[in-house]
């Protein structure tokens, strides 16, 4: 095993990298190799997810859930992708010069200089990535984070004072006619701009129509499934991924087929959600309604909120990744997120034991009793009881008080000898319980 020439990056339980404070994600590229320079003892990192942030360049291997980080503090220079005849046929390469310690590890302020090559094997645009990389390097976010905070505070206080000054200046208006004139002007300008807006809207929509027609062709191609050649070419997978991303950005619903894993955005969102939802799940007793998660997550996010469909897509992707939560749909249509660890059998066992207590044998259990025992919300407890009923563990009793559930004794009755009471057994326990009440 060669020496690890990049410092490792810690990942959360769902495979998302842990960011330092102030670090912002800029760009995500799948299928990227990192090759170290001329030193033969350093092994290259193949086919991982490259994450460009404001502070580092992260390389994550999704299969083994490990990752390495290239801090920008160590980067000396980044060379643009070469544009030659040869490079048209090969995957684009971006070379970065970094400083390294004598044994080959990449550190900031090291004595030696190494050349690292970033090979973009997927269908990624190298120029866009290079542009973003240069931007990030130029902004030197990792150095200015502390000073920026101080400067921000100063600028905010300065900003507020200027706005109040401007407001004070505008206050003296010339009488009622002045107000009326201003209203008239405002009205006219909005009218004009609205007409223009409608014209522009029409032009935009005609272009959008073209895109939709193109999208239909793409969608058919996606639905037709893998090609008949049977070649497990990554090209095919890569282009399907691209098409998904493309359809998503234009706003057309795309099918998440079994082979493809949906847009990259949803994959990352799925991982983020799995991390986020752990704490609320514990508080809610292991089961939480999807709509509650939508509100909680968007509130926590503040800006750049996700749509309900984003949430649904991300949750359906969980079955492809190895995360500890799952999406579950009840018969009534209610969708919940629950811990994979909380097996249904365990929940049903608890319901059955609750239903066999002496008071429960007499009066049955209501959804609120079950909610107290299981520690989940009453609406979800009712769903669980209904599911238990559908597999035959409990029976319902509809009364003016509402629903109550009793342990299912019909299974204990032997059809050949219906008066036989097996002791010990639930039937016997039930008889002794009701006889006590007189």
């Amino acid at each position, binding site marked *: 095993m060669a020496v690890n020439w990049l410092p490792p990056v810690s990942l959360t339980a769902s495979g998302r990298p842990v960011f330092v404070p102030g670090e912002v994600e800029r760009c995500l590229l799948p299928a990227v190799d990192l090759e170290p320079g001329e030193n033969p003892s350093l092994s290259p990192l193949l086919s991982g997810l490259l994450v460009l942030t404001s502070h580092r360049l992260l390389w994550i291997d999704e299969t083994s859930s490990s990752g390495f980080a290239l801090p920008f503090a160590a980067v000396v220079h980044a060379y643009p992708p070469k544009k030659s005849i040869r490079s*048209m*046929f090969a995957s684009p390469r971006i070379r970065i010069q970094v400083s390294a310690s004598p044994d080959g590890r990449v550190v900031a302020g090291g004595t030696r200089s190494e050349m690292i090559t970033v090979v973009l094997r997927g*269908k990624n*645009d190298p120029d866009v990535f290079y542009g973003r990389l240069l931007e990030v390097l130029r902004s030197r976010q990792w150095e200015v984070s502390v000073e920026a905070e101080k400067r921000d505070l100063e600028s905010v206080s300065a900003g507020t004072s200027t706005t109040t000054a401007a407001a004070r200046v505008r206050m003296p208006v010339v009488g009622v006619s002045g107000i009326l004139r201003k209203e008239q002007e405002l009205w006219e300008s*909005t009218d004009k*701009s*609205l007409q*223009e*807006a*409608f014209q*522009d*809207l*029409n*032009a*935009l*929509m005609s*272009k*959008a*129509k*073209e*895109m*939709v027609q*193109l999208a239909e062709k*793409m969608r058919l191609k996606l639905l037709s499934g893998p090609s008949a050649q049977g070649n497990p070419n990554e*090209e095919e997978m890569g*282009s399907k991924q691209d*098409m998904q991303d*493309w359809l*998503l*950005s*234009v*706003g*057309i*619903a795309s099918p998440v087929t079994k082979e493809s894993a949906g*847009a990259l*955005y949803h994959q990352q969102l799925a991982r983020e959600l799995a991390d986020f939802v752990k704490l609320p799940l514990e508080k809610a007793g292991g089961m939480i*309604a*999807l*709509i509650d998660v*939508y*509100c909680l997550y*968007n*509130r926590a996010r503040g*800006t*750049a*909120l*996700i*749509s*309900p*469909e*984003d*949430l*649904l*897509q991300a949750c359906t992707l969980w079955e492809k990744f190895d995360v500890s939560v799952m999406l579950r*749909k009840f018969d009534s*249509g*209610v*969708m919940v997120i629950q811990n994979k660890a909380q097996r249904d059998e365990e929940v049903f066992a608890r319901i059955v034991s609750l239903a066999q207590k002496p008071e429960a044998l007499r009066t049955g259990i209501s959804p609120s009793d079950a909610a107290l025992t299981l520690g989940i919300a009453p609406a979800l407890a009712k769903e669980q009881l209904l599911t238990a009923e559908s597999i035959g563990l409990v029976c319902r009793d509809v009364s*003016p008080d*509402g629903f109550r559930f009793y342990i299912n004794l019909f299974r204990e009755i032997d059809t050949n000898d219906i008066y036989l009471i097996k002791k010990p057994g639930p039937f016997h326990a039930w008889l002794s319980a009701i006889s006590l009440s007189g």
Partner: protein
Amino acid sequence: MRRRPGIAGLQSAAASREQYRQVGENVARIRTDLMKEQLTTFRSQLEEFARKHKNDIRKNPVFRSQFHEMCSKVGVDPLASNKGFWAELLGIGDFYYELGVQIVDICLSTRSHNGGLINLQELCDLLCQRRKGARESVSEDDCLRAISKLKVLGSGFEVISVGKKKLVRSVPTELNKDHNEILEVAQAHGYVTIEELEKRLSWSSGRAIDALETLLKEGLAMIDDGHKDGKRRYWFPCVASIFSASGFDGFKP
């Protein structure tokens, strides 16, 4: 590429196969390049539009609803995902998703009163009260769009029409035709009696009692036995107009 003997020949044959494969790849790549080109043109057009009219979409509900109608005619959904161009450039995604969160909140806080069914007008009024600080005004159309997006999350968020009014349902209870008709009758005074139902809809008393009991159980109806004539009245907070008029201060955040 003439055939050469020996190892050199094999190598050159391999090299030429490789070149053919790459040419084939390039043809495929050109098609995707065309796609990308279309995408970039569209995106730049959208950027231009956004630059000029972003404010109009934010401020003007009429323009906003027009925009949505045209999008649905063309077949794109600007609210489908936060990652799409529409949300990124026009910024209308956040507006609707935030609205969705607020609607869920309001429905939850009024559920104990109306059982999960709320008048659309009342919902809009409560929303406006809540959003007094925000700059953008909210129209009924905006509420409807936000709710239609919430539908995919299960939990039964839906808009149903009862007579002239629209009601927003936030619980998974199914309402059948009988229940709908009762709600329609209730719109007149806010309550119904069993005799009224039997007379107006020519139902048997058993049918009326059955339907009313179900609505009662689900929490959508309330019983009032305090009248002089002794007849039991069933009130429906969702269609009664008592809450919508005066400032109902119970639900201020």
